[in-house]
Every structure is written in C-alpha cells, then in structure tokens.
C-alpha cells in the first residue's frame, strides 16, 4: 500500500510539472478563467440577477469542460505512445495502476489549480452580498468531481490512440453525449419510442442533472457516488486499454 502511494505520487508529480513545462498550462489557465468569468458576467447575468450566489458561474461549467478538460486529458497516454516513452514507463518497477492513477491525479490537480484561481469570484460575491457559502462550496466540489469524471473518460480515450487530436475529439464527443443525456430535448425524443426505464437510465447518467442538484446545494451522497464510480469505471477501462494497446 505504501508503495502504491509512493509510486503514484512520483508519477503524479512528474506529470503535474510536465503541464507547466509547456505553454499549455498558461494558455489553459488564462482561457479557463476568462471563459468562466465571461459566461458568468455576460451570459449568466451575474450582476443583473441581483442575487448573491455563484449559480451563473457554475451553470456553464459542464459546457466549458466539454472543450477544456479533454484538452488536458488528451496528452496523458497518446503522447506516451507516440514518443515511445510508454515502453520506458511500463518497464520501470511500477504497476500499471500506479501509472494510471498518477497521471489521472496530476491532471485532476491541474484542473483543481484552475478552479482555485477562479476563487476571486467567490470573494467578490462575499463583498457584494451575503451568499450561502455552503452552497458555493458544494458547487466547487461538484464542479471538481465533474471535471474528474470528464478527465477519467478523456484519459481512457487517450490510451486508445497515439494521435492527440483524435483523443480530444472523441473524448469531447463522449462527454457531450453524457451532458446532453439530461436535457429534456433528448429525453423527450427517447420517451417517444423507448420504455420508461431506458429514459430514466439515460437521464440518471447525465452529468447535467447531477451537477445541477449539487450546485443548488444538494451535495448528496448519490451525486458524489455517481461521479466517483464513473471515474473508477473509466480508469479501470483505461487500465485494460493501456495493457491492450501499449505495444501497438
């Protein structure tokens, strides 16, 4: 157990630093902060609503993540395979799990940094009014969990290909479907021709409905379990794919 933690930590540290060794980190962080702000102020009507909360800020996170999180995840395995370093990595005295977890946690921590950098929003809303800080904290936790689920899927897809662009597009599409599956638009289409349990199964897979509930302050166990189990499932698939495709 101790070894698992140690090796995972070493891998994660390397990966995390790797984000900052290219312009990717700076570009990503600037765009993330600019877009979350822009959506909250211009589209979400942060001031016009006259309410001291961050709902207009969190509301657009699923849509931003569609583009931004696969961009963070795409390099995780595709780059290793393209440059051949996967052969180096997988012949070091570590287990595949340690590599997969380490990489995933590094990417997740990177998204965490991006979220922390949006905290001036939180401070602002506290200066302007008296928000329910518990709801905002729940929103941050929900957003972070959702980002983790997007990332795990992205990491899994990244193991399928040595082409980062393909990894990005496929991961974005899958995440898009998972977000969309909660919209009435999609559910109505399904209701017309499928039995009820399919509709509820699809809607229960939705990122949107789980995230909505959390941002409204219901940080329920089921919501947390939904995201965590999705992460676990995606990472498990990731392990299988790495084993299958590493030598291609």
């Amino acid at each position, binding site marked *: 157990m101790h070894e698992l933690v140690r090796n995972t930590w070493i891998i994660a540290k*390397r990966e995390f*630093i790797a984000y900052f060794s290219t312009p990717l980190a700076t570009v990503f962080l600037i765009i993330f902060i600019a877009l979350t702000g822009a959506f909250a102020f211009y589209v979400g009507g942060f001031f016009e609503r006259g309410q001291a909360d961050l709902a207009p800020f969190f509301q657009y996170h699923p849509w931003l993540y569609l583009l931004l999180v696969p961009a963070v995840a795409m390099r995780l395995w595709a780059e290793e395979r393209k*440059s051949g370093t996967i*052969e*180096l990595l*997988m*012949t070091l*005295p570590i287990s595949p799990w340690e590599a997969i977890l380490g990489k995933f946690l590094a990417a997740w921590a990177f998204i965490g940094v991006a979220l922390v950098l949006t905290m001036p929003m939180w401070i602002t809303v506290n200066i302007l009014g008296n928000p329910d800080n518990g709801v905002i904290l729940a929103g941050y936790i929900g957003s972070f969990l959702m980002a983790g689920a997007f990332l795990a899927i992205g990491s899994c897809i990244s193991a399928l290909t040595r082409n980062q662009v393909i990894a990005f597009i496929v991961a974005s599409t899958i995440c898009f479907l998972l977000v969309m599956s909660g919209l009435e638009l999609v559910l109505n289409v399904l209701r017309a021709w499928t039995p009820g349990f399919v509709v509820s199964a699809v809607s229960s897979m939705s990122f949107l409905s789980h995230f909505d509930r959390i941002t409204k302050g219901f940080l329920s166990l089921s919501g947390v379990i939904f995201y965590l189990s999705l992460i676990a499932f995606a990472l498990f698939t990731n392990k299988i794919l790495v084993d299958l495709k590493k030598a291609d």
Partner: protein
Amino acid sequence: MSALIEASDLRKQFGDIVAVNGISLNVERGEVLGFLGPNGAGKSTTMKMLTGFLEPDAGSARIAGIDVLENPKMARAKLGYLPEGAPCYGDMTARAFLTFIAEIRGFDRAEGGKRVAAAVDKTELHSVLEQRIDTLSKGFKRRVAIAQAILHDPQVLIMDEPTDGLDPNQKHQVRKLIAGMAKDKAIIVSTHILEEVEAVCSRAIIINRGRIVADGTAEDLMRRLPYHNTIALKVATARAEAIAKALGDFSAISKVERVGVANGRVQLRAVPSVGAPIPAELASMIRTRLIEAEEVQVERGNLDDVFRQITTSDTGAGHA
C-alpha cells in the same frame, strides 16, 4: 547459479504475422550477447518480451531467476532497459529526468543524487544536464537514455540498438561503456552493425524471421564462412602456374582458385580445409619468398557475409 537472463520458447504473433517463433536463450553473468538480425526479424519483440513489456503468446522469460510476468515489479527492479529509439521525456531537463528515474527506482534523495552523478559521469552528460532533452542532439539524447538504464546498476541490462545514429566517436564511447560494465552483469545488445558484435559481444545470436538461426562467438560465426582464412595472393603472371601448384601441395589447402588477372598480375586464392589454420610452413615460404607473391592477404571473412548468407538462405517462400 542459473543464468541471469533466461528465455524459454518465447512466441509472439501479431495478427497473421509470426514475429517471434520459439526463441530460447540463456545469458550468464559476465556475458555480452549480441542480437543480430535484419529489420523485422523479431529482435525488438524478443527484447520487449524479456523485459515483460509485451506478454508472450507462449513461453516464459526470467530476469535473475524472477519470472517477468508473475512478478513484474521485482524483475524490473533488477533490469535496466534501453528501448528502441531511446525514448525519454523530452519536456524534462536531463537532470530532472534522471532524478525522476532515481526516485521511481526507490532511492532516497541522497542516494539518488549519488546515482545520478555516477550515471552522468559514465555517460559524460555534464555539459547538458540543465538542458531540456528535446533540445539535445541525437547522441546526447541516446546517452541520457543509457544513463537512465544503468542508473541503478542493474544485474541485467537489455539495450535495443544502443549505438544507432551515433557518430563514430560516440559509438566507440558507448561500446567502451558496455565493455566496462560487462564483468558483473548479463547484457543483451541488439544491433545490425556487425563490427559492434566483434567489438563488445562475447557471444552473438542471429535471429531471422522469429527464430535463432545461429548462436556462437563472433569467431564461431565467422568460421562458418566459405572463405574464412582464405589466403589471397597477387603473383606475376609467369609464375602463377607454379605457385598455384606449390600451394595445392599443402594438405591443409583444399583448393586453389584463380580469381582474375589485373595489371599483369594474377590473383590467386588458396582456400584452406574447413577450420584448418594456415600452415606455418606456407607462411614461412611466403615470408622467405619461395613463393613470390607481391601481395598477400589473409581474408578473415566478416560477419556481414555470415549475416547475409544466413539470413538470405533461410528466407523461405512467402517472405515479402
């Protein structure tokens, strides 16, 4: 003690292509085994199975007595591996990369620092330590990858084309490094440069189409050549007949060939019986000019010939 590297009946197929078709080998401590073969012969695939990176369809591999599939972590701890193309994390500096390797190999900060310094010394990387690996020349990149493989002073070292793409000086240096480590390790080096086998390998295996087609010392392999130890002489045309006859009288010479005439001199070739050394008497006759040759050369044959001979004669039908 059993061999440090053991492989028994390794097999691997990719789709319809049989990449490795039953390779067994043992490498003892102190041995440097050369892996030879044309491109696509199965050298790299075999090495990948020896390191546990690739799971064989059948057969097993052991490093220092530990099965690489049953106990991969322990086996890898005893192994240094230079993968084909010497991949490294290009976004890191050489120092950061080697420090990462030392950490993952389980050394604490102080010991890791010493290991990195020692590996840097051996591969002479001092001047580029703080540079990003991406920006290094091919020779330095390869040396970083070699430093990575030898950092933990492993008992077993597997190197896939360690000198590929290096200039002659760098090649010499890498060979010197390998030779220097050979004493207390079991080393496998793949290459298609045959002089390398003669320079560093105590034994060589030729692989073709997924099988071992020859196994022996460089000397052994050369002895298989038809023209090994052949004596080539250039003699005056007038004396050619007599000299050919004199040569043919030696029992150790199986035949004398007339290769051709150039510039008024005849080129003769005296082929010895298989494995026989050049008779001392013949040597002294040439030296004392009883046989009047203007030019004498003993052809050792070279590994390139063995290589071509073995790998082309073994090529069956259906080989693209």
